[in-house]
């Protein structure tokens, strides 16, 4: 039976193709929609999110972190923090999950063309940045200098380690890693992200900074960026807010008159300043 209008609450059932253990707390899931036509037609832009369901448990929001230029699967990286994420972590290749995607807006990657890009990611906040970064690396000539500062609590909390190695090697981007607590083997920085950011001191000239991470990290990173001379329009962030419907109806995710599920999750600092401070 088809319903008219389309049922925005009904997930597409999908099959997990591969599970990658990124860190003790983070797993990456590569999934394909069971309906081949829907999978074929699926398109999204970097920054957009999806609602993943473990049917019988519930739904939560995760960034689609496969680059849009690679279409064989959809990828989500999930940090285990509570009920649903713990259940997701028990799933294996072949298991079924529900997917409602894509939802939300995207990074303004068009207006970023020709500019220097500074990525600042903390913990699982690296997931949305990764999509945009991979997109830019796939279209490398269109962007200026790319700097990545990626921080985690400790070396074994760094997700995407297989790619981080590659990013460190590349000479068309500058990658800096930092952890709060080092180990004897750790060869990179030790220190909080905002401090390391000030140390690297990227120039705000024709640049855009994109940051994502825990709220407290975003707060101090934004301050550091401002100290470095980045203007409100030059600071882009992606917010986490509890979501339910994901389509602007249920009233869960608003900050003032803006609904993170449809007007976000990507905002410039200039946009956020117009809204009540409910980060």
């Amino acid at each position, binding site marked *: 039976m088809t319903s008219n209008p389309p049922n925005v*609450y009904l997930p597409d059932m999908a099959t997990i193709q591969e599970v990658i253990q990124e860190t003790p707390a983070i797993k990456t899931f590569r999934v394909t929609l069971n309906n081949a036509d829907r999978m074929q037609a699926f398109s999204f832009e970097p920054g957009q999110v999806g609602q993943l369901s473990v049917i019988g448990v519930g739904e939560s929001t995760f960034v689609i972190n496969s680059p849009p230029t690679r279409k064989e699967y959809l990828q989500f990286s999930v940090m285990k923090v509570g009920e649903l994420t713990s259940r997701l972590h028990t799933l294996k290749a072949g298991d079924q999950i529900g997917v409602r995607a894509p939802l939300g807006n995207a990074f303004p990657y068009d207006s970023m063309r020709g500019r220097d890009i500074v990525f600042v990611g903390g913990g699982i906040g690296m997931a949305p940045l990764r999509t945009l970064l991979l997109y830019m690396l796939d279209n490398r000539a269109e962007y200026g200098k790319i700097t990545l500062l990626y921080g985690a609590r400790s070396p074994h909390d760094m997700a995407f380690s297989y790619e981080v190695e590659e990013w460190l090697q590349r000479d068309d981007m500058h990658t800096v890693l930092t952890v709060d607590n080092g180990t004897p083997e750790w060869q990179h920085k030790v220190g909080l992200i905002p401090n390391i950011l000030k140390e690297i001191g990227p120039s705000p000239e024709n640049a855009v900074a994109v940051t994502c991470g825990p709220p407290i990290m975003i707060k101090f990173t934004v301050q550091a960026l401002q100290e470095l001379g980045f203007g409100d329009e030059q600071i882009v962030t992606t917010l986490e807010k509890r979501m339910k419907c994901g389509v602007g109806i249920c009233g869960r995710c*608003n900050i003032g008159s803006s609904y993170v599920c449809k007007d976000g999750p990507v905002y410039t600092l200039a946009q956020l300043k117009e809204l009540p401070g*409910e980060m």
Partner: protein
Amino acid sequence: MSTARFLKARDIAPWLEELGREYTVLAPTRHGDTVVFREFEPERGIELDRLSTTPAKKALLPPCETLFEYATTKTDTPPYRTSIELRPTLPEGKILLFGTRPCDARAMQIFDRVYDGEQVKDPYYTARRNAATIVTLACSGQAGTCFCDRVGGSPVDATGSDVLLTPLKAGYVAEALTEKGMELMRDTAFMKADGLRQEALNVRNRILEEVPERTSFLDMERNLLSLFGDLGFWDKTAESCLSCGACTYLCPTCYCFNITDEPHGDSGKRIRTWDNCMSSQFTLEGSGHNPRPTKAHRMRNRIGHKFSYYPQLHDKTLACVGCGRCISNCPVSFDIRNAVACAIQHAAANAQEHAHD
């Protein structure tokens, strides 16, 4: 052809009973000391003398509703794959809302802009909405807690209604305002009453004359923005609030919902239930972080949504219809009228201060 009929008071209950065969009929009925809006049953009767304590919104957005049912099956040979089938449960059947008040009918249009918007449509809501006929009773006068006139409505406002009833002696003049309303009235045995239209209009005008002159809460959405940063103001405003949420559940325009799963073995359902933004749980995140940690934040959001955010998004229409339910049912007598009036004053004072900077 216009359709006006005269409904004798004593003929209404039998008529609703008859309509019950074709429609799910909801009407205000007495329940102990209160009046609640619920499914009509002849033995319960109807109570049209005062505004119901519970609003009519549940006819379109039930307090608990199934979005889909699911069933899980496992193959019993290797590789033991699981498959999950989802079955959406869209509502069917016609609905008649009888005896809503103008504020309740207006509230439906406030829902419409969100649930039946241009970009997104909620299929459950729209199925009910399209199948619903709304028969509104004009109020004979305002109660002490009513302030529909200050938020863009009035005691005789027909916005959002399919039929408007105007009280006359011993009955009501029913005027159909929409195609659905005409259909409902056309098929009745009630006396044609086009001659009573003028009298009904006179009655409504007399009711309107009784509405006091007082300040309106319209066009304040931008002014209130200056208060967002003033948490101290909201702290004071929310001081006595218990975060119980009675105000949100009884509000005809509050439409937030939660989505949860209810498993029973290998099958189960996903449901949605009314939710309450006055609770600290509403925005609490897995990490323990809460973007609205205090009741001041939550009060700011509730009042902000109704008097600033929603009107900014929807052509200046306020998301409060002035029914006063949140005032008369709050355990600590929080009065949203005072809070908004105070906020408007405060915002004006802020603006003045800035002008002198």
